[in-house]
Structure formats: C-alpha cells, structure tokens
C-alpha cells in the first residue's frame, strides 16, 4: 500500500514538473483538454 502511494506521488510530481517546465507541454495539455471538453459536450 505504501509502495502504491509512493508511485502515485511520483507520477503526480513528474507530470506536474513536466507540464510546468518543459516548453510546449502545457500547450499540448490545453489541446487535449479542449478535445475532451468538445467530445463531452457533443
């Protein structure tokens, strides 16, 4: 259980840092979110 918790924290940390610091990743996320909203609303 502790192992799973650590894995979740690691995934959240790596994802957040990637979106924040790697140029262009946030734009990609914005595009994906736009598509999700578009599909959900259609």
């Amino acid at each position, binding site marked *: 259980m502790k192992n799973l918790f650590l894995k*979740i924290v690691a*995934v*959240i940390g790596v*994802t*957040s840092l*990637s*979106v*924040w610091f790697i140029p262009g*990743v*946030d*734009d990609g*996320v*914005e595009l*994906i*979110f*736009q598509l*999700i*909203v578009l599909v959900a609303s259609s």
Partner: protein
Amino acid sequence: MSLIRKIGVLLAWLSLIVGTAVVTAAVKQRSEDGPNRVFSGGPLISGELYQGSEPDWSFVDDIDTIELQLLNPAQSRRIWTASMDGKLYVWSGYMNSAVGKLWKSWPAQAEKDGRAVIRVAGVRYERQLTRIKKGEGLDPLTTLMQEKYGSRATPEAIDAGDLWMFVAGPRPVTETIK
C-alpha cells in the same frame, strides 16, 4: 491479473496523469500574461494602454474573442464579444444552469466590481462593466450574437437571467490604472 483488471489499472493511471496535467496547466496559466484558449490567465500586462476618445467598437464584430480581465480578482479569460451602436458588449450564458453556476464566477465578480481591462489586438482598454438585466431594445445585438456565434441569445434569456449581458463602457477617470 485479468485483462479487465489490467485495463482498469491502466485507465486509472492514465486518468491520474491527465488530471494532474490539466490542473498543472490551469494553475500555470494563472501566472501568465493573459488567458489561453481554455484556461484563465493572470493580469493583462503587455500591450499599449489605450489613451484617447471612446472608440467605435463595431470593429470587434470581426473578431472572434477578446481577453477580459477584472481588477478584482485580477484574473483574465477569453470571451465572446459583439457591438451595437458603437458600444462594446460581453456576456455569459447558461447562468441558470448547474454548470454555469459552478463554472462561471466572473459575471458575479463583475457585477460586484465592474472595473476591467480588455485587450484587443495587443491594445489594452480600461473598461467599466455594467450589467444589463432587461433585454428590451437589444434585439439587434442578440441577432448579431446568433449570426456570429450560433448562440441562442434572445432578449428573453436576458430577462430570465439565463444570459448575463454587460456593456463595457468607459471607466470613470478617477478609477483608471497607472
């Protein structure tokens, strides 16, 4: 591990990654100079601050969206716009729906404190948002909104409070920003 369980675990991890990425992107945008297409942004900083006589706002009818920032709170978002009789209008729909009440906070904030800055084509304009609660006389505007955006805007929707309409007029001189 059964195949269905494996797929479930995979989807759970995928959801965690996408959810984290979306939240991070939204938080990051709050510190940027303006919004992007989806997420709210921080204060509008760049761009010349317009000084001069009140413009004829009919030129916004050829523009899809403008950036709107309230002074309180200092957050910006991208919104639809239209003009009528040379005046600038912005609005928010679905205000009586659960989604609208949950998602859209800026109209209530603007009603409380209408001081705003808009940015159009890189130029910032100081504005004062004033809510219009009666749709009477706004037929040409709602017709334009329908043509421009395929919106279901009507004067009746304004009367019913489903559509919150604001006229973005000039701000009193004493309240202008430096």
